[in-house]
């Protein structure tokens, strides 16, 4: 089925987690809500609570203090759940590899389903990542 039909039948609810990111990825995620990119026309909403979310979008290289928090939020999400690591920092630590307070990537803390590349990735790329992930999961 086409993308628009797909989006009309499945609308992923996203929750965003900032794991010690520099905020560049975060403002691009928020920019996805704004009129130019308007992720809401696909039914994707940015929610505040993990209990309502299908997809957790994680940015940042995950500092030591946040490791347990990220795990906790992941555990609070109901199945089926997906994790999207946005940006180079969330993928592998990015420029912050070899920094003492950094866990170097989301997959060191929770299992990741999709990696979106970029520093920061453009809003279209982030959305594309989420959509591709859900399509490949059979939605």
């Amino acid at each position, binding site marked *: 089925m086409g993308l628009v039909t797909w989006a009309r039948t499945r609308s992923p609810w996203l929750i965003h987690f900032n794991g010690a990111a520099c905020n560049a990825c975060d403002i691009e995620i928020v920019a996805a809500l704004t009129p130019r990119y308007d992720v809401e026309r696909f039914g994707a909403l940015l929610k505040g609570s993990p209990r309502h979310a299908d997809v957790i979008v994680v940015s940042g290289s995950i500092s*030591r*203090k946040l490791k347990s928090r990220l795990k906790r939020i992941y555990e609070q999400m109901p199945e089926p759940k997906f994790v999207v690591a946005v940006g180079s920092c969330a993928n592998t630590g990015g420029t912050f590899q*070899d*920094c*003492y307070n950094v866990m170097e990537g989301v997959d060191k803390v929770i299992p990741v389903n999709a990696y979106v590349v970029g520093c920061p990735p453009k809003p279209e790329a982030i959305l594309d990542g989420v959509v591709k992930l859900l399509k490949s999961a059979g939605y």
Partner: protein
Amino acid sequence: MSYVEENKKTLERLVEAIGKENVIDSKIPKDRRVYVTIKTDKLRDAITFLKEKEGLFHLATITGIDLGEERELNYHLNRPNLIFTIKVRIPGDKPVVPSITDIIGGAVLYEREINDLLGVFPEGHPNPKRLLMTEEWPEGVYPLLKKWDVKSLRKAVDGEEWT
């Protein structure tokens, strides 16, 4: 330019106020910068003088450097057309510095940061708790000291080898 002269005079008046024997070194590398190294026990007097008599009441930040045997602290004060840096040298085996939070209120967080990262304890600080490190961070591990590199730091904190 008038401020060039003013900056020179500020330095001269400070030297006069705390006594020439307490000034270890000074330099004016360019128009709007002055650096002066003084003895640690005169730190509070110097800052009080600069704040009250020279209009240098704004503390931008406190920088710390690990020079091996000693740790050097820079107090960066500024006013229009001048960044005035006071340097003190703290011995590595007894890293304590008198706190200036009662003179300049804005120093509260900078002193805590220096304590966390370089282990220089601000004596007299009202609340010298940890600012930056997590609760599990072991005592006595000050990341910015040259003796630690990333690998040994991770080992000290996480306890296992990091690949």
